[in-house]
């Protein structure tokens, strides 16, 4: 039984931010939740899926974020409360639909939950969803702690119903993936019924058809909705002020930066000098509330992640208010007091605050810091990202890299998003030469494959994961086939959405709620499209390389499916297929011509080079027993025995 659903009103729980968001949605009586996995957002849908059997709730991992938004919108059109959840990049994917949705309006409360990743802790960009709130002209809510993550989520649904439009609720990694104390509210025991009404007058928002036309008229309504939200924001309990009546500095902040700012004021011992205005409603800004606070001081410090979104909006507002509040001096990202890239922390905010106050902030004893820095430099080797022990991607890229090297025509690989993105690093033998958005590897490859008429004669390869194939790889493959582009698409099929924690996708026989589902067969789809298709197991590199060589020689679009389950999958985890060992008699060590091929080049964390005996060894604690390294040792010194 999960605390998420069973927890009673008034009970205090230690919840991860994403659990708090899920609980808030349950307390709001959400009926439909859809999303696409992406760190740091994935646990919201996972948690809701887990409790979906205990209540009348529909939860799905949609094929991509645009479809997640569409699925959630349908529920709203039928009068239900719904949400769609994604990481920051997902909003880019969904935006085409969303730009139409915000014109047509919604019925049942609908909330868009993007989780941004300042500092790109698990992303390859630190783009922000907040800018979409402005582009979409919808209200933006940003919780400042774990309790608010729950409470504001509930309120977001009410707000959406009040204005009959989509509401954005934005979280960040340090809220979504941090945990804190949350006092629970009531989960309503209601039984909402779905009914889509469309027979009313064409302009009737509740009874007519739901369309975005006439555009200028609907756009006007949308602006009115935004104004209404702004009025509600003026009295929102999620905007709070703590500090002196006339502070020397007014610190305006939101989201995860609230926690850093609060601590920074403490670190600077500046409670008497600094006022903290925490905004939960960050777009549109509550003008009257801001006016009230601007009147209290001349110096404003804006603390937010990542770009100066709130800062710029505040400056526009301050200029409009200038005749009444006077000219203000703003400190923040544009003034250089707060870094404009990367994530913040209490030290960065304290440094900025101290600088403006004319104090110095010295977090550590300089003597200790010098000693620790020296020691860390000499004795703490960096820990670069790498594929897990037993990861099929290492094996796949081993074969791809070696075949392209032997092929000797300067062939290259275009990549996209997944664990396999790491193949641009030495742990993937630096195989990826382009790396962009979901599905982009094959789209970019499709373009390269048409450059023959301009003299490009290098073999073009793309890699794409199984979940990515459904997300956005399919249209790219269709494009390549239709335009007779010469490419080899390698589908790295590890039977799940590996990077984010093994969520289901349309190629699997199970859905988010654990129900049996029809699995769409990737090779059958590719063949139906017209591609030449081969399937291999990357843990058998000889066979894999033979097939890949052959496909590279063929014209047209070829698909090679390298199929092997992720080492972290529930089926495989902690189970070794093979017991690995190195025969010290056979390993020639430094005298072998291979020059430590297994550790220097293959670099599996399960292997070690023993500096004393000068031979390779297996690290039994780390080795996952996949058996792959037995196939790469030129002397045959690494042996595998089927595990009992």
């Amino acid at each position, binding site marked *: 039984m999960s605390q998420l659903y069973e927890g009673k009103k008034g009970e205090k729980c230690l919840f991860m931010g994403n659990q708090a968001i899920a609980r808030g949605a349950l307390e709001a009586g959400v009926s439909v939740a859809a999303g696409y996995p992406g760190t740091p957002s994935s646990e919201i849908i996972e948690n809701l899926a887990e409790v979906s059997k205990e209540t009348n709730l529909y939860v799905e991992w949609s094929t991509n974020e645009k479809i997640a938004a569409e699925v959630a919108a349908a529920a709203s059109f039928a009068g239900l409360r719904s949400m769609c959840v994604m990481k920051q990049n997902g909003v880019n994917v969904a935006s085409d639909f969303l730009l139409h949705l915000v014109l047509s309006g919604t019925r049942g409360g609908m909330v868009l939950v993007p989780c941004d990743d300042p500092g790109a802790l698990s992303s390859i960009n630190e783009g922000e969803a907040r800018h979409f709130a402005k582009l979409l002209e919808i209200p933006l809510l940003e919780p400042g702690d774990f309790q608010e993550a729950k409470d504001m989520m509930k309120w977001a649904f009410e707000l959406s119903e009040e204005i009959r439009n989509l509401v954005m609720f934005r979280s960040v990694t340090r809220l979504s993936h*941090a945990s804190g104390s949350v006092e629970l509210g009531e989960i309503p025991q209601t039984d909402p019924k779905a009914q889509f009404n469309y027979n009313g007058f064409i302009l009737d928002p509740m009874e007519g058809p739901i369309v975005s036309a006439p555009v200028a008229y609907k756009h006007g309504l949308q602006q009115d909705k935004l104004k209404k939200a702004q009025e509600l924001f003026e009295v929102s309990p999620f905007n709070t002020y703590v500090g002196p009546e006339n502070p020397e500095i007014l610190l305006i902040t939101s989201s995860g930066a609230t926690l850093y700012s609060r601590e920074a004021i403490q670190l600077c011992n500046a409670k008497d000098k600094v006022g903290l205005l925490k905004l939960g409603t960050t777009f549109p800004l509550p003008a009257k509330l801001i006016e009230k606070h601007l009147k209290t001081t001349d110096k404003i410090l804006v603390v937010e992640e990542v770009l100066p979104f709130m800062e710029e909006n505040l400056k526009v507002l301050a200029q409009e208010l200038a005749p009444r509040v006077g000219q203000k001096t703003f400190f923040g990202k544009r003034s250089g007091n707060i870094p404009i890239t990367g994530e913040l*922390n209490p030290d960065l905010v304290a440094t900025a605050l101290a600088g403006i106050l004319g104090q110095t902030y010295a977090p550590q004893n300089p003597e200790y810091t010098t000693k620790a820095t020296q020691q860390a430099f000499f004795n703490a080797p960096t820990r670069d990202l790498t594929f897990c022990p037993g990861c099929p991607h290492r094996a796949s890229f081993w074969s791809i890299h070696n075949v392209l090297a032997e092929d000797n025509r300067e062939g290259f690989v275009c990549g996209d998003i997944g664990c396999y993105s790491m193949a641009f690093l030495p*742990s993937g033998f630096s195989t990826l030469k382009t790396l962009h958005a979901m599905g982009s590897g094959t789209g970019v490859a499709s373009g390269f494959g048409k450059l023959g008429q301009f003299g490009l004669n290098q073999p073009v390869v793309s890699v794409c994961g199984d979940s990515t194939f459904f997300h956005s790889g399919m249209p790219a493959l269709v494009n390549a086939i239709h335009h007779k582009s010469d490419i080899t698409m390698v589908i790295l099929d590890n039977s799940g959405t590996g990077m984010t924690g093994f969520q289901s996708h349309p190629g699997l026989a199970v859905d988010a709620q654990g129900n049996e589902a029809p699995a769409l067969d990737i090779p059958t789809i590719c063949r139906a499209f017209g591609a030449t298709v081969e399937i291999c197991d990357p843990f058998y590199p000889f066979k894999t390389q033979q097939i890949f060589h052959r496909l590279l020689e063929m014209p047209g679009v070829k698909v090679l499916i390298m199929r092997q389950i992720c080492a972290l999958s529930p089926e495989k985890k902690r189970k070794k297929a093979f017991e690995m060992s190195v025969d010290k008699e056979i390993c020639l060590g430094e005298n072998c011509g291979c020059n430590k091929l297994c550790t220097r080049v293959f670099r599996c*964390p399960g292997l070690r080079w023993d500096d004393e005996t000068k031979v390779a060894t297996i690290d039994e604690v780390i080795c996952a027993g996949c058996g792959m390294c037995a196939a790469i040792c030129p002397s045959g010194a690494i042996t595998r025995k089927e595990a009992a």
Partner: protein
Amino acid sequence: MGTATLLKDPYNLIITGVGGQGNVLASRVLGNLLADKGFSITIGETFGASQRGGSVMSHMRISAEASWSPQIPQGKADMIVALEPVEALRVLHTYGHPGIKIISNTRSIYPVGVISGDQKYPSMDELKKTIEELSEKTWFIDATSAAMELGHPIFGNIMMVGALAKTGVLPIDRDSFEKVILRTMGKEKTPVNLKAFDMGAEMIN
């Protein structure tokens, strides 16, 4: 509830290790245990891409009064629990100070740069000496070997929790541990985790 007191408020604990060592689970167990005792807990975690062989850190703020930032300020950690010894040193560099205490596992996990021969991993003696020099009190335990005896290296994380309990720096007792494990992992997994907890505690003198 309410009877336990802290040596310092907030008490700042960092649990560190390498992705896959069960860092996050250890922080959840400790967090839940201390929350049951009425403390306000904030845990900040790095995972996601960091899971793939990278360094992992959980920052835990334990307070009787308020909730604190999920990131501990520089030089403000009170205790480090390291599932891997080099990670203890890495954390000391940013969050350490002369009064810090450390429990570290002694089993190394080589970074990929060490495996490839591009970087050197220090000898355990050198590493211990360095860590001792940078802290007030240290405990080194071979949790991984003990965990292997118990059947799997993953139990190392719970051994470290048991060891932490024994040091007495935080109000962690066996009964509260058992209650949390029973609630979060179920009946079947409780005995082996209790055993791991006890084995960890025994390794602290």
